[in-house]
Each structure stands twice: as structure tokens, then as C-alpha cells.
């Protein structure tokens, strides 16, 4: 098959497909390969996951022309409330009106629908869904992947975007440092009687954080939040099996009545929590993006945002290279991407890992120290602003595509 493209993107999820679109806007052609069936991925109720889209990520969606269509589905986060087991001493991150929102909440399904629709219309993207890869190769002049139906796809640069278990990364023999928290995140949509007022709650318990993320109201006007509840591995099965009524009662024990009565819970799913970081995010004619390169605890909701920053940085590096006549697989370009994203994502990963460990310490003494610490953050505007900027994703060296 003589259709050599610029990029061979393995993994067409949120990060991989955003990359294909952002690259297309800069004139790069791509193959996008994913084993999943897009119909199933965008079916109602496929997964209840939601993502906080930071201001920086939102700028990226704006720059690639997705924001207009998505705007109506986003729930702006007006403030973030952080508490230790609902005890006094909470920190509120509320930006001034001129500072804009802390991010927007979207159902992942909404994001996928928008991305898939845009990708289908984009001529520069050749999308190979429901495709299994049987072999990958990277050579002096290009890269290739062979699909199970015998199709051979060729390009200049291979990109691993399959998420945390990235087979492309494994294939390249890139070492991964990882540890499991031995915890799972239980995900469910909650319907509640009181409006959330755009507030995102992070309630810390020794077993792990209990987060409530504001979602847009249901069509019938009832109020909704997405729940991310961290439980220990051995408790997860039990929590998943609870009846709806028992589940809601357990949830209410942990969140009090901040959202009034809990009236319904959507389908529950769970994901293992872990932290991983790769020794390197590039190799010969290979770049890793998103969770393939680094996975972090979802405590701060930054996983997708980090991946989208990878996208912005990689596309900027490739576009600058193209202006200089350099091949997309050029080692000097990949070196720049490595230096830019390797360290930045590691800092965020370390910070969130530190938070998780800090809040995971049991006992009243640890709790007192945490509340004392939170009181300190509450009173120190500089530190608070840093946390808010981090949540917005505007710290560090920002790729142009993520700027307004």
C-alpha cells in the first residue's frame, strides 16, 4: 500500500484523536489505528467517565475548531472545595471573576463524539477503527504497522497513544517505573436534589479521595455530579455489588448533604489506580503521548490535560521542524519533545503522588496536620494561586496550541 503519511498514531482515543486533528490543522497527514469500535465507544452508558478540561486544554480545543460545538455541553467549574473528611479547615479555590473558570466538566462520551465527528470529516486523517496490529517496525527512513487483515500502514513517525498499557511502548522496550496504589476508583453519575453551583469537591479520606465533579443538569432539569470514589482494592468488588440504595447511602455518609438528597446513581464502573512514568518518552522515530508516557493518580483530574499538553508540544515541535525542512521522525525534533515534556509531566506526577500519600496517612494526628496545612494554603494567596494555575494547566512552558 503506497500511502506513506507523516504520522502513524496507534491508539485513537481522546489523546490520539486530538493529536491527529491538531496535526492535521498544521498540515500533517496521519493514519490512526484503534482496535475499538467507535459505535460502541460512543454508545449511551458505555462508560460514565467524565473529564475536567483545563483552560489550557480548552484553548487547544478552540484552536483545532472543536470548542464551538462542545461549549454547550460543558459545565464550568466555578470553584474547588478541598476538605479533610468533611472536617473544618476546608480550602476553597475560587478564582476572581476576571480570572475565568477553573476548567469545564465533560462526559468523555461527549468529547469522543465531537472528536470522532471531526476526524471523519478531516481528509488528512485515515482512520482505521476495529483494527488489530500484528507487527510494528521502525527503521532508518520510516515506520510501519501491519494490521491483521494484511494492510500495511507507513509513515515517518510512530506515536504510541494507547494509554497506560501501551503495547507500542512495550514493543520498544521502554522501561516503566510504576507502582499500584492497590486502590480502585469507582465511577458513577449521581443525581441530587440541590444544585452543585459549579463546585467540585475533593474530600480526602485515609482510604483515598472522594471527588464530586459538577456536570450539566439532566434534560429533565435534575442536577448531576460525577462521582470518583477511591476505595481499597479489596473493598472495590463489594462497593460495585451494592444495591443502588445502599450505594447512595454509603456515598452520603462520605459527602454529607452538600448536594441535598441523592436520588439516583448511574451505572458503576471501576478503574485500578496507579502511577507510572516512563524512563523516556521517545525512541527512534517514536514518540509516546498521554497515559502511554505517564499515568497519574486521578486525584487532581489532570491525566487527560497532561496528555493534551503532550499533543500541543509534539505538534508544535513537528510544525517548527516542517518549517525547517526536517522529517517528522527527525531525532533532533524528538529530542526537543523529550526535553519539553519528559520533565514537566514527571513534576505533575510527583506532585499528585505526594498529595495522595499525604492524604492516605491514617490517624487523627495526620489529619490534624493536613487540616493545619490546608488552613495555611487557604491563607497564602500565592500558594493558592499556584494550585489554581496548576488546575487550569497554565504553569510550565505552554505549547502555542494551548494558548488563547
Amino acid at each position: 500500500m503506497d500511502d506513506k503519511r507523516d504520522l502513524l498514531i496507534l491508539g485513537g482515543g481522546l489523546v490520539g484523536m486530538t493529536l491527529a486533528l491538531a496535526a492535521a490543522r498544521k498540515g500533517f497527514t496521519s493514519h490512526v489505528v484503534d482496535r475499538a469500535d467507535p459505535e460502541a465507544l460512543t454508545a449511551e452508558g458505555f462508560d460514565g467517565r467524565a473529564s475536567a478540561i483545563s483552560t489550557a486544554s480548552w484553548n487547544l480545543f478552540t484552536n483545532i475548531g472543536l470548542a464551538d460545538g462542545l461549549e454547550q455541553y460543558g459545565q464550568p467549574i466555578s470553584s474547588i472545595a478541598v476538605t479533610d473528611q468533611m472536617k473544618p479547615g476546608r480550602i476553597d479555590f475560587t478564582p476572581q471573576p476576571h480570572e475565568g473558570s477553573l476548567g469545564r466538566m465533560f462526559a468523555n462520551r461527549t468529547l469522543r463524539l465531537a472528536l470522532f465527528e471531526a476526524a471523519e470529516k478531516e481528509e488528512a486523517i485515515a482512520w482505521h477503527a476495529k483494527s488489530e496490529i500484528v507487527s510494528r517496525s521502525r527503521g532508518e527512513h520510516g515506520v510501519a504497522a501491519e494490521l491483521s487483515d494484511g494492510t500495511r500502514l507507513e509513515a515517518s513517525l510512530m506515536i504510541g497513544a494507547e494509554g497506560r498499557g501501551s503495547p507500542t511502548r512495550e514493543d520498544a522496550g521502554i522501561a516503566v517505573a510504576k507502582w499500584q496504589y492497590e486502590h480502585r476508583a469507582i465511577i458513577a453519575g449521581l443525581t441530587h436534589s440541590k444544585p452543585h453551583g459549579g463546585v467540585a469537591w475533593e474530600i480526602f479520606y485515609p482510604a483515598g479521595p472522594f471527588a464530586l465533579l459538577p456536570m450539566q443538569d439532566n434534560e429533565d432539569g435534575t442536577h448531576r455530579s460525577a462521582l470518583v470514589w477511591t476505595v481499597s482494592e479489596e473493598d472495590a468488588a463489594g462497593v460495585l455489588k451494592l444495591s443502588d440504595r445502599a450505594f447512595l447511602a454509603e456515598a452520603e455518609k462520605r459527602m454529607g448533604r452538600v448536594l441535598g438528597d441523592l436520588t439516583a446513581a448511574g451505572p458503576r464502573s471501576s478503574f485500578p489506580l496507579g502511577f507510572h512514568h516512563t524512563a523516556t518518552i521517545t525512541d527512534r522515530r517514536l514518540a509516546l503521548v498521554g497515559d502511554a508516557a505517564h499515568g497519574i493518580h486521578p486525584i487532581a483530574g489532570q491525566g487527560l490535560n497532561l496528555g493534551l499538553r503532550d499533543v500541543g508540544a509534539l505538534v508544535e515541535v513537528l510544525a517548527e521542524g516542517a518549517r525547517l525542512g526536517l522529517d517528522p521522525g527527525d531525532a533532533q525534533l524528538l529530542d526537543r519533545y523529550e526535553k519539553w515534556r519528559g520533565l514537566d509531566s514527571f513534576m505533575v506526577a510527583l506532585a499528585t503522588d505526594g498529595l495522595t500519600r499525604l492524604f492516605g496517612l491514617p490517624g487523627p494526628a495526620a489529619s490534624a496536620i493536613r487540616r493545619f496545612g490546608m488552613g495555611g494554603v487557604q491563607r497564602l494567596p500565592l500558594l493558592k494561586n499556584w494550585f489554581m494555575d496548576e488546575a487550569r494547566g497554565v504553569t510550565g512552558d505552554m505549547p502555542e496550541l494551548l494558548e488563547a
Partner: protein
Amino acid sequence: MPDATVANLTIREDEAAHFGKLAAEWWDPKGSSAMLHRLNPVRLKFIRRAIDMHWASDVEARKPLSGKSALDVGCGAGLLSEPLARLGADVTGVDAAPENIAAASAHAEGAGLDIRYMAGELAAQDIGTFDLVTAMEVLEHVADKRAFMRELAARLAPDGLMILSTPNRTPQSRVLMVGAAEAVGLIPRGTHDWNDFLTPEELRDLLSGAGLTMGEPEGIAFSPVKGLHLSGDLSLNYIVTARRA
């Protein structure tokens, strides 16, 4: 008839393998040409800006050299010739060493780029004139600089653009480029003779003797944080444009 094919540059299979290996060495970003690879994006940045200024091209255009011819003198294995071809130029690469030319041809073919490579001295080639003439890190290796500059000037089209880069003859370049870099293997030993280096003033005179006007030189400096980068500091290496007076 012994190897009559060699005369018309058809290369035997074992030789092709040898040149393929040589090309792989040249193009290995961590190999003996590592410094040149790192230098490449830096000098290309200067070249791109010079192209956009000279021909008033769109700074975002993918092929600003489309429809233009380019001559890359001292092309080695094509580290600069290939980007120039991607920028749209019809490129001719010349190098004195036939094995470099064979390596360059092998690599360009693999990359799917149509570049004309020629081995031998520039003076011996009857190839007409070019819109863009480049000679990167070449002057310092040339014995008769005046004669070489006349040859370069003769290949430049009347409205053409010439771009040259070369190390400066300063105490810094003596210590860093010839001393330290060769001692630690960053630059292959014996690559440079410091006495052959040209100061920007000497280059200006040399160009003017060949009927060319030199532009404002820019330095290629090194810092541990930024690596190699364009700078106002000309003490190590510099890059400059020239055009007909």
C-alpha cells in the same frame, strides 16, 4: 572488461552495502556526526529566515523554495541537502569525497527525495547557476580560499542568495572547538586546523573580492541550558548571507 560500469557511477552491490553503512554512520544522530546533527536545526532556522527575507515568502509555507534551484557545496551525506529538498528546492549536492556522495545518494533514495549528487571539486563541474548556494562548514577546510570563493560566486544566479557558515578564529574557538571538543570526541579528531579559520572581517573581504556583499553575521553559540543556538556571540562559529554587490 574490468568494471567498466564504475566509470558511469553505477555502483557494485558490495560497494552499495558499504556506502549504505557509511550513510547510516553519517545519519546516526548519536554517532560521529552528532555535533552536525545538533547544529542542523540551528543553522536551518537561520536559513529559513534568510529565505523568507530574500524572497519575501510566507513564514508558514511548507515549500518556500518551490521552483528554485539550490546548490549545497560540501554536502557530506546530505544533512542539509535533504531539508532543502523538502522545502521545495531542486537540489544539487557536491562533495569532494566520492564515498560521501554515494552515502548521500543512498540516504536520499531511502528517504524518497530526488536530489542530484555529484562527486569532485566544484571547479570541475559545469552545472550552471543556482538561486540558492550554501557552503556550510566548508571554508575552513579549503586550501585556496580565494579561488574557492570565485567558484562559489560563479554558481550564484544574479538575484541569488548565498549562505555560509564557518568557525571564527578566536581564542575561544581554539580552546573549545579544536581543543576540548576534539579531546572528548564531540568532534572527530583532526577535523579542524585552527589556523584555517576565518574571522567575519576576513570573510567579508574574501566575499567582496568575489563581487559579493556580506549580510550581518549571526553567531552559533553553545550554552549548557540552551545547547547550540543562534546568538549575537560570534566567537565560536557564525553563519551569514551574501548576495551579488
